[in-house]
């Protein structure tokens, strides 16, 4: 298929193939969790605590999710965000398909190497502060497909993951528990550390 300016879909395939191969060769170890500041004791004075409290309250009660769902866990997430399990109680019923408006990426489903550059790019295009929940066994370690030739063994190979939710697929209650964990983590953020 001609794309214009002399390119055709073959060149696009080759370019995308290189991007995937580079990522695959570079993503060999798990990225560290971005929560070093959880353990340290932060000296807070009056001003930072009130600002922290206000900022963190605002952030944790309206986490907007980026719809970068890939596989089966998607339908458990949809069950959670539908009227029965009602994720709106957490202010999270807004689903954003563009990373510009999202601040939480729930990676619902298996990640393959062909999809990895796209998920990494969408994550990088999200504005700080942003968080990642690795949902399901495939998100944690590749799950039932871990020894396949085309599956990334866990999202932490390409994204710094904040909360891991086991299950295949995890029940909506498990997902809500994971979100509760994330909210506790957000409460601990502080501007004193230049979060």
């Amino acid at each position, binding site marked *: 298929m001609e794309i214009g300016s002399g390119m055709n879909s*073959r060149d696009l*395939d*080759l370019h*995308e*193939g*290189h991007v*995937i*191969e580079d990522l695959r060769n570079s993503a060999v170890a798990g990225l560290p969790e971005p929560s070093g500041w959880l353990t340290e004791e932060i000296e807070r004075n009056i001003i930072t605590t009130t600002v922290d409290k206000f900022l963190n309250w605002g952030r944790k009660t309206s986490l907007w999710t980026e719809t970068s769902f890939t596989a089966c866990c998607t339908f458990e997430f949809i069950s959670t965000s539908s009227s029965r399990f009602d994720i709106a109680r957490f202010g999270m019923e807004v689903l954003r398909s563009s990373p510009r408006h999202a601040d939480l990426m729930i990676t619902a489903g298996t990640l393959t*190497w*062909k999809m990895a550059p796209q998920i990494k790019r969408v994550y990088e295009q999200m504005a700080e502060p942003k968080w990642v929940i690795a949902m399901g066994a495939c998100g944690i370690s590749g799950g039932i497909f871990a*020894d*396949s*030739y*085309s599956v990334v063994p866990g999202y932490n190979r390409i994204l710094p993951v904040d909360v891991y939710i086991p299950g295949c697929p995890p029940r909506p209650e498990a997902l809500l528990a994971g979100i509760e964990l994330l909210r506790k983590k957000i409460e601990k953020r502080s501007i004193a550390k230049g979060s």
Partner: protein
Amino acid sequence: MTVGLDYNRIIDVLPEDLASGAVAFEAHGLVIQPEVLTGIAAFLKTEPGLELDYLCSITGVDCTEYFEVDYLLYSLKLNHRFTLKVRLADRSEPVIPSLTGLWLGAELQEREIYDLLGITFSGHPEMKRIFLWEGFSGHPLRKDYGHGH
């Protein structure tokens, strides 16, 4: 009930030059030479009384000594089915004529077999990988493909 066509009935009706390509008769299907595949397939599709106008599925198998490609054909009107099998001994350069000229449904399935097994379909409009990315080394469904990575 979808009736499986008896290959004897097919052999009797096949024209002489095509029938010579038929190699063996197995319970599951008629094994034919790659050269006569397009001819026999076109014949099965258009012959009144057979009219196998629906290509249900194509399966590629690596049987270590040869590659085998099974074509499962249905006739929706007459409600019967038939399987054609093609075997390729050449493991380095396996080539089979493509059936996209007869059935549009073959296009994606042939690309899948090319991608996962490395069998090229001559005459296919877009012979390139479908699932894996360009730059992926090897064809995973081959028995000698190194396990995992």
